[in-house]
């Protein structure tokens, strides 16, 4: 009896396993091979999928070029491009921060291309050698929780945050977020090493909490875990969209104050790209009006080109920007990292 039951069981199990095996032998055939060779343009994007995918789809519709999109974190994709340099796989790299493009440019893995559409982009938001071009911008702002910060207490300068009343209430993303690193480098560049170091050390003594990334900052401030946060302007709009009680400050706007740092998102063509012509068309397309409007609207970015509707976002002309170019920031980077090991 036991023997028969066991046999029955074995039989059922074998049948289950063979169904499974057959299913998976057939499945890969049913789908197209996922090789990148079936595509005519390979894009590595550090920009979020929700922000870049509509643009890519529009490009595919308009040109008929089939795009393979790989979405990741900007630094991770940059590392991939560095590791693939012997046999490049990506044609286009879209970065959320231009400093990464400068690093890749120094390593010699980018191809120069000056798109006609880039002429109107301000010089500080594109590479002098045409190795990358800004496609939109983010301002380095202060966000605050409206329930925790009274209107009289709203800081107007980043320097105000050293005040004891902010003790333990400030959040910032660590240098793992490259926009933080760029901001620190900008401080070193404008204030000088000693002053910048003293300022950041005071903030850390004041209990500034260093978080892994920017989404932790805006969620932390939005939820009331922190009163204020140093982060990028789109995050303010994301927090608003999530119905969180946040306000924003574009700090240091006084005539003698340094202004707000702008981090451009950038597009670059990878050196040795297999689909160079399509890549150039894509770079041109990103700077065209329809693409720009999609890019800006979906992600609350600041347009860098004139004539693009900024929507709810404060345009470039709406605030005083900190004047420093990306090459200088990239040069300061190594020094900045060694100055602020705690970040």
């Amino acid at each position, binding site marked *: 009896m036991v023997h028969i*039951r066991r046999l029955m069981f074995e039989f059922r199990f074998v049948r289950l396993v063979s169904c499974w095996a057959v299913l998976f032998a057939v*499945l890969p055939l049913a789908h197209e091979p*996922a090789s*990148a060779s079936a595509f005519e343009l390979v894009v590595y994007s550090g920009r979020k*999928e929700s922000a870049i995918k509509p643009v890519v789809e529009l490009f595919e519709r308009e040109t008929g070029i089939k795009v393979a999109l790989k979405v990741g974190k900007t630094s991770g994709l940059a590392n*991939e491009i560095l590791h*693939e340099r*012997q046999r490049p796989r*990506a044609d286009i790299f879209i970065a959320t921060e231009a400093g990464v493009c400068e690093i890749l440019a120094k390593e010699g893995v980018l191809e120069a291309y000056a798109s006609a559409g880039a002429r109107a982009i301000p010089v500080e938001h594109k590479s002098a050698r045409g190795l990358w071009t800004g496609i939109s911008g983010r301002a380095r702002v202060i966000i605050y929780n409206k329930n925790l910060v009274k209107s009289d207490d709203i800081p107007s300068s980043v320097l105000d945050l050293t005040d004891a009343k902010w003790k333990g209430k400030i959040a910032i993303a660590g240098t793992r977020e490259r926009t933080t690193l760029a901001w620190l480098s900008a401080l070193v560049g404008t204030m000088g090493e000693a002053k910048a170091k003293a300022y950041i050390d005071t903030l850390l003594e004041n209990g500034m909490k260093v978080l892994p990334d920017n989404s932790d900052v805006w969620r932390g401030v939005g939820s009331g875990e922190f009163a204020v946060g140093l982060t990028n302007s789109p995050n303010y709009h994301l927090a608003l969209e999530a119905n969180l009680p946040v306000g924003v400050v574009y700090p240091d706007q006084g005539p003698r104050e340094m202004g707000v740092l702008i981090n451009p998102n950038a597009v670059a063509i990878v050196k040795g790209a297999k689909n160079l012509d399509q890549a150039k068309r894509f770079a041109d397309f990103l700077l065209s009006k329809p693409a720009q409007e999609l890019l800006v609207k979906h992600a609350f970015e600041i347009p860098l080109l004139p004539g693009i509707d900024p929507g709810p976002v404060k345009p470039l002309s709406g605030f005083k920007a900190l004047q420093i170019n990306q090459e200088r920031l990239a040069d300061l980077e190594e020094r900045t*990292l060694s100055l602020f090991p705690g970040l």
Partner: protein
Amino acid sequence: MVSSDAQHAELGGLGALWRSQRMGSGPTAVAGAVLIILLTASPLAALVISVFTGGVKAVSILADSSILWLIARTMLLAALATLWAMILGLPPAWILTRTDLPGRRMLLAVAVLPLAIPPYIGAFTYITLLGPVGWVNGAYQAMGGSGPIVNIYGLWGGVFVLGLFTYPYILLMAGSALKGSDPALEEAARAVGLGPIDAFRRVTLPLLRPSLLAGGLLVFLYALSDFGAVSLLRVTTFTTEIFHQLNTRFDQQNAAVLSTVLILITAMVLIAQRGSLGRRSFVQRRSGVRPPTIYPLGRWKVPALCCTYIVLGGSVFLPVTLLFYQTGSTTSLLHTLITGHQFLWNSLWTATVAATAASGLGLFVAYLAQRRRGLAGVFVVSATQLGYAVPGTVLGLSLILLYNAYLPWVYGTAAMVILGYLLRFLPQAVQSSTAALVQVDSNLEEAARSLGRSIWQALREVIFPLIRPGIAGGWMLVFISSMKELAATLLLRPAGFDTLPVRIWIASIEVDYAGAAATSLILIAITALPLFLITRRDATLSRLD
């Protein structure tokens, strides 16, 4: 007459032994061993070479005093997580295999389900609950308390979450040892007057030692190489520091040096474990041993049930409920399933291929090491064990470097993802096959060979039927781990080829929590189903025995 027969068999056995030694170094074995060593050791070699080409400057990071702190912290995390996993895993293992708890077979099948929940998802749910502005603190403050009373972030949170989602390794290993141990030993202990607790402490626990060590090793090595959960919980460990060196500083040299240190630590742990096992002989599971004594719980029934349900609640029911809540509605779950079916297939077939390949290779490696106790076996096993040590990110980057340069037609295809799974999780298959083979007396094989069977026939007709449960278990482990793998997949996936964990990751950076929760549920369900079935089957079969 009888004695001459025995002598004969012994001589035949010796002959077979001699032949099997010769066979072991036959061309198939050599080719296979070389292939496996090439496959597994090449990323490692690439890593070490890049350290040495850096010269003295490369190792300057080791002179930094903070590295000792990093080592200490990472080891502490791994050790505490292992301890916590044992605390969580051992009592249910005993209760579910050795007592008359109602519904214990079903509970056992549920208790292994945390293996289907990736710790990064577990970390995420516990941040929602126990974070500084999580539900618990919110409720506490609503009741008039001031300030947060719990904070999941930091070392203790890391220990809590890692232990909670890895305890099934302990449960599985200890559970199968408890089921298989000879009841005569415990009965003897009881007969000389020891109470049940003393009998457990002085007889059962020492018998459990090898399986506890094996399970503990899995947890320890998991904690050592985990990136997702620890980075979410803001714990600085080796893997997060390697990530920092790579992705902030673009310093591949420092990352390579740190990875090499991590590999050395892992190698030492593995050697220590082997040494500690090596001094004792294994308890062999023989057919014909009576099933273990089942203790009636009596008035302990309710506490035992509570204990089991608390562990299951924290590791299965609570996270899954929370994910359902975050998903919002069944329609959004269905919507995610329909729009994401491609990612589901991608995950399923790559994990299936990887698990099957790993089982085959694992069996080969285990057989080689078990039946041929030479240097070759040690080499092959050590080479496959390295998958434990190399963090997914580092493995991914080394593979890019190697395959893009030397096998460009493989690179950029889904085969790279499969290769990543295979290299990371091959040790699990080797471990399972070894554990199964150890329990098969090599005399059985020798007997078959002395009766004129070829080595393949002996394998197929005698050994394989006996070790099949072990192989199936190994297949399952690799399949589950592959389904959950994120770090290497992120790097190795061809453009346009995403898996379920990649989609969860993308949804979470897009702050689309409903989408992330829905995709997580799909991943957990798909992984849990075969796990549940195979555990149930195991339980049913052992009852039939």
